[in-house]
């Protein structure tokens, strides 16, 4: 795949013509093509940093090392001006703590850090195991499933609802809103869903404040910051992030993991015989199939990666390119169980690094363990349409039909 060079419409003065590409992260890869392979062609053939005029114009980092430099530099690359491309309008609350800078951001993260700490995750992992086992037991007798709908959207949402003590019956509504809010190509549809999600959470926050418990939602909305309580906007924005983060990204990585195992019988056989190698496989899957993309706001004029950036520019940091950059990893596209990468970027890097990494790893491990115990052999079901991809803030699979001998 090659990105077209475009004319200078909507391109600011300081951006040289030869750095401009026609790139739209929502549409750059069609649904019947592997989005990682299309990214790989871009990252391994094109310049390390390019500019696209879409959505008011933004830079795209297209190089693993530049990504490693950009993520930790929170003072140069601010998150406080929102992290979406395009950013949400002013009436949509900041997604907290991610759309904030230090030291405010660090203070906001405290209850999340504790809830998702090694100790916090012990109890959550027990819950996750129960939910995974229950769901796979339901599915296994069918001999087939649409993995995204039947499993990877459901299981993390069930766990999240337990963590924040919200009703399990709200699952389908929230899945639909989260999906549209993050994935819809139409900006108006995304915003509608985001506002509906905010309205839902607003109501729940108000109710919970009247009778807080020992759940994560109560811990977040009753926290003190600099001797004050959070505002309702902060509380709602925080809960929205928790929901997106705990749902879409974990579920997305589960689908990537399931797809990898469906296509690699040798890895499946090895893990069935040696379940102790599952964590090594998961780390490689996280490297090779990273899915999240964030953007930042450039806080001062600066030369970065040999390119002049101006204060106020937006710059996109796509983690999917890191693990597939051949200049960063030998045979980057291969999942090698003995590679044991400790420095991949699936969870980002620096102060904004994903607070849910320990829980995400536990959920992925438990999913693979429990799934392979019950369904050791399975494949992608081409008769049901095969896999379908989607791109955007979080890229991944929108459907993954699987089948096996029931």
């Amino acid at each position, binding site marked *: 795949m090659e990105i077209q060079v475009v004319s200078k419409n909507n391109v600011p003065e300081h951006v040289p013509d030869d750095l401009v590409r026609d790139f739209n992260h929502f549409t750059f890869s069609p649904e019947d093509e592997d989005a990682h392979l299309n990214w790989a062609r871009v990252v391994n053939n094109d310049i390390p940093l390019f500019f696209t005029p879409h959505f008011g114009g933004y830079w795209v980092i297209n190089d693993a090392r530049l990504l490693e430099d950009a993520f930790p530099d929170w003072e140069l690359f601010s998150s406080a001006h929102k992290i979406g491309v395009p950013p949400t309008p002013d009436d949509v609350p900041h997604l907290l703590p991610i759309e904030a800078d230090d030291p405010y951001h*660090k203070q906001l*993260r405290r209850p999340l850090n*504790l809830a998702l700490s*090694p*100790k916090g995750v012990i109890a959550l992992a027990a819950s996750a195991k129960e939910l995974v086992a229950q769901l796979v037991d339901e599915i296994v007798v069918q001999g087939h499933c649409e993995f995204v709908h039947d499993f990877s959207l459901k299981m993390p949402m069930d766990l999240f609802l337990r963590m924040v003590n919200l009703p399990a019956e709200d699952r389908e509504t929230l899945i639909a809103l989260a999906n549209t809010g993050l994935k819809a190509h139409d900006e108006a549809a995304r915003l509608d869903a985001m506002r509906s999600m905010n309205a839902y959470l607003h109501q729940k926050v108000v109710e919970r404040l009247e009778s807080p418990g020992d759940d994560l939602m109560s811990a977040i909305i009753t926290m003190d910051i600099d001797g004050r309580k959070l505002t309702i906007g902060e509380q709602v924005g925080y809960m929205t992030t928790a929901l997106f983060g705990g749902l879409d990204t974990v579920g997305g990585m589960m689908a990537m993991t399931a797809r990898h195992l469906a296509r690699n019988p040798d890895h499946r056989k090895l893990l069935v015989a040696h379940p102790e190698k599952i964590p090594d496989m998961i780390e490689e899957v996280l490297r090779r199939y990273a899915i999240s993309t964030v953007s930042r706001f450039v806080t001062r004029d600066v030369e970065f990666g040999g390119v002049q950036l101006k204060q106020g520019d937006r710059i996109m940091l796509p983690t999917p390119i890191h693990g597939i950059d051949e200049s960063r990893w030998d045979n980057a596209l291969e999942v090698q169980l003995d590679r044991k990468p400790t420095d991949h970027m699936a969870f980002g890097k*620096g*102060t904004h*690094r994903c*607070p849910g*990494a320990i829980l995400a790893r536990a959920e992925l491990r438990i999913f693979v363990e429990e799934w392979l115990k019950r369904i050791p052999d399975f494949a992608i079901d081409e008769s049901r349409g095969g896999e379908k991809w989607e791109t955007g803030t979080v890229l991944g699979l929108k459907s993954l039909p699987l089948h096996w001998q029931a």
Partner: protein
Amino acid sequence: MVRMVFVSHDNNEYPVEVAEGTTLLRAALDNGVPGMTGECGGELACATCHCYLDEGVRAKIDEPGDDEAEMLEGAIDVTADSRLGCQLRATASFDGVRIRLPASQT
């Protein structure tokens, strides 16, 4: 330079020598010591650089600050000896010290 020995939960010893001022987390990671995960990279956000210090060295260094004490609540098998390696810097007080690592960080 400061010489220290990391000791795994099953008593394997990993001697290291690092420049003064290096955090204990960095000292372990840079020298390939297993069992010091440092998930968050040293941001005091994850409690996976949990380690144990003997009373001898603890008497010579500052007590944990409020933020470290709070984050330590998220570690597993916490004792009076518990500290977070990202908040400790190798100084002369650490020369010859043995730093024990928990079973949970393997």
